């Protein structure tokens, strides 16, 4: 994209053109008492050279640790072509363009993305993306309230095996709009949600049930039984899925006899690098019956006056520039750049490539769990089948052990103490295709030493 500077004279001319004397005058509408006078805690401005040095130093502090943490964000190999293509000038923008139809290439890419997500999740339609997995759960919950016209309660059942951050974001986003998120406990020995735990809701007005597969522990939920339970009671099913896992696991559209009604997740595993928590992107798909309740943008394929194929934004009457206060969401954009990367990633990998990533990641996680469980004081928490992530129980607090591993350049996993204290000292670990057997062996050795040292201390 071109760099467009403006001189003081340019600014003066623009202000004169609209009959305003200063830039400050443009903000007249904001009353003085609402203005923030000083920005406490915000450091003073730096010049380009200073900021360059600061960022280099910060990046160096991160180092290149060996990472065995998953918990919602996964380190996968990203073929070099993905970002080489994504950062081409023609694609390099964070947004759907304002004159959308003038950018046929961008719209075609989004259309291909939607097709891929629909195919991966087994849903009939996908939008052009949301912000991330957590906000996608919030949007799906709001959408379920609009779509489930048989339910008036706005009660959403959320098993505690759903990512704790997703639960928190959903409650923060939709809680003030009257939705009630009610937690369903998991079976302690299995680390997954049983239909028995839902029995107490029989006969009650429930709007939707959220099911995460694999769940936050990496364990596989009995999605067919849970979906059938919900469907039989006119409760919509919101599936939260890891896109990589869908290369191996049954897609949400095929859960139970009826399929899930809405499928969401975080798209980060599809070509988006780990980067201090973001930016990532969220995806959402649903059945055509509910498409008008879906938030965000949708690209459609059509023909123009001359019969040529073209792409266009469609079903915009859901959106806030037309539907105003009654719009399905305040989301009127998408994560365009990350979606571009994901689309190119999926194109390069293909279904077979994605399946190989999923299979290799799962095999590496099994290898990791087997190696770590041999260590004195470490054992797997659950016997339930899992996908590329698992919980280990330690015989001592996790935090000091992780600290000790960190000093050896290893990020050993996610400490579950804060979100699942009932498990006792518990560590969520993950290995993807990026880890070699040597990496796993050096983690096992380091953990063994750390546990031994902790015992001696």
């Amino acid at each position: 994209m071109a760099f467009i500077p403006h001189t003081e004279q340019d600014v003066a001319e623009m202000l004169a053109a609209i009959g305003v004397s200063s830039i400050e005058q443009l903000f007249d509408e904001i009353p003085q008492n609402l203005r923030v006078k000083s920005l406490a805690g915000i450091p003073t401005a730096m010049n380009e050279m200073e900021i360059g040095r600061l960022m280099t130093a910060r990046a160096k502090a991160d180092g290149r640790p060996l990472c065995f943490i998953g918990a919602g964000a996964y380190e996968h190999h990203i073929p070099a072509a993905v970002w080489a293509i994504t950062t081409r000038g023609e694609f390099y923008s964070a947004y759907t363009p304002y004159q959308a139809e003038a950018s046929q290439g961008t719209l075609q890419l989004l259309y291909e993305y939607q097709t891929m997500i629909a195919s991966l999740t087994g849903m009939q339609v996908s939008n052009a993306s949301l912000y991330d997995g957590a906000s996608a759960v919030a949007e799906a919950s709001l959408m379920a309230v609009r779509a489930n016209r048989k339910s008036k309660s706005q009660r959403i059942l959320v098993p505690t095996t759903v990512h704790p951050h997703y639960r928190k974001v959903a409650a923060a986003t939709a809680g003030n709009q009257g939705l009630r998120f009610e937690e369903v406990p998991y079976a302690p020995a299995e680390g997954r949600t049983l239909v028995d735990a839902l029995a107490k809701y029989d006969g009650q007005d429930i709007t939707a049930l959220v099911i995460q597969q694999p769940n936050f522990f990496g364990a596989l939920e009995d999605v067919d039984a849970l979906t059938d339970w919900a469907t039989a009671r006119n409760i919509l099913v919101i599936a939260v899925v890891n896109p990589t896992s869908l290369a191996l696991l049954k897609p949400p559209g095929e859960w139970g006899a009826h399929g899930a009604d809405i499928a969401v997740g975080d798209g980060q595993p599809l070509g988006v690098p780990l980067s201090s928590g973001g930016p990532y992107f969220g995806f959402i798909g649903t059945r055509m019956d509910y498409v008008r309740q879906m938030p965000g943008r949708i690209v459609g394929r059509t023909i123009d006056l001359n019969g040529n194929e073209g792409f266009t934004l469609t079903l915009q009457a859901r959106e806030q520039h037309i539907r105003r206060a009654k719009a399905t969401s305040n989301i009127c954009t998408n994560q365009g750049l990350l979606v571009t990367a994901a689309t190119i990633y999926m194109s390069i990998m293909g279904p077979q490539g994605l399946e190989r990533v999923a299979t290799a990641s799962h095999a590496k996680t099994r290898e990791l769990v087997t190696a770590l469980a041999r260590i004195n004081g470490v054992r797997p928490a659950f016997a339930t089948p899992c996908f590329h992530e698992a919980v280990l129980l330690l015989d001592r607090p996790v935090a000091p052990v992780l600290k000790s591993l960190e000093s050896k350049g290893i990020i050993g996993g996610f400490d579950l103490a804060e979100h699942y204290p009932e498990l006792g000292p518990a560590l969520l670990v993950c290995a993807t295709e990026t880890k070699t057997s040597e990496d796993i062996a050096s983690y096992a050795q380091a953990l063994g030493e750390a546990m031994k040292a902790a015992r001696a201390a």
Partner: protein
Amino acid sequence: MSNVPADLKYTRTHEWVRNLKDGTVEIGITDHAQHSLGDLVFVEVPETGRQVGAGEPCAVVESVKAASDVYSPVAGEVTAGNPELAATPELINQDPFGAGWLMRLRPVNAAMLSELMSPTEYEALLKVEGA
């Protein structure tokens, strides 16, 4: 020039009301409203049994260029939503005062119907609005 049947009642928000013989009323949007919206692509009608207040949004009509709410002219209980509109929303464009009806309801107070606009008053409104 919009068609304004003489045997109906009207609202400022372009709904019409037909008094049915069984004490219920039929409600739809006027010829002027369908013409302003353009080709309808989607209609959401209320469920049977729903209690609606006067002036409450109770249905949604979506065209290729806009989506808007339909307000209930009177308070009452919905006795039927037009089941044909889900598959054929264009009925509203083709026959807004007949096959394109949106819903039927049993008014809480039938006397409230006399508060609605007469055809003459509605025609005057259209003139003011430049239709």
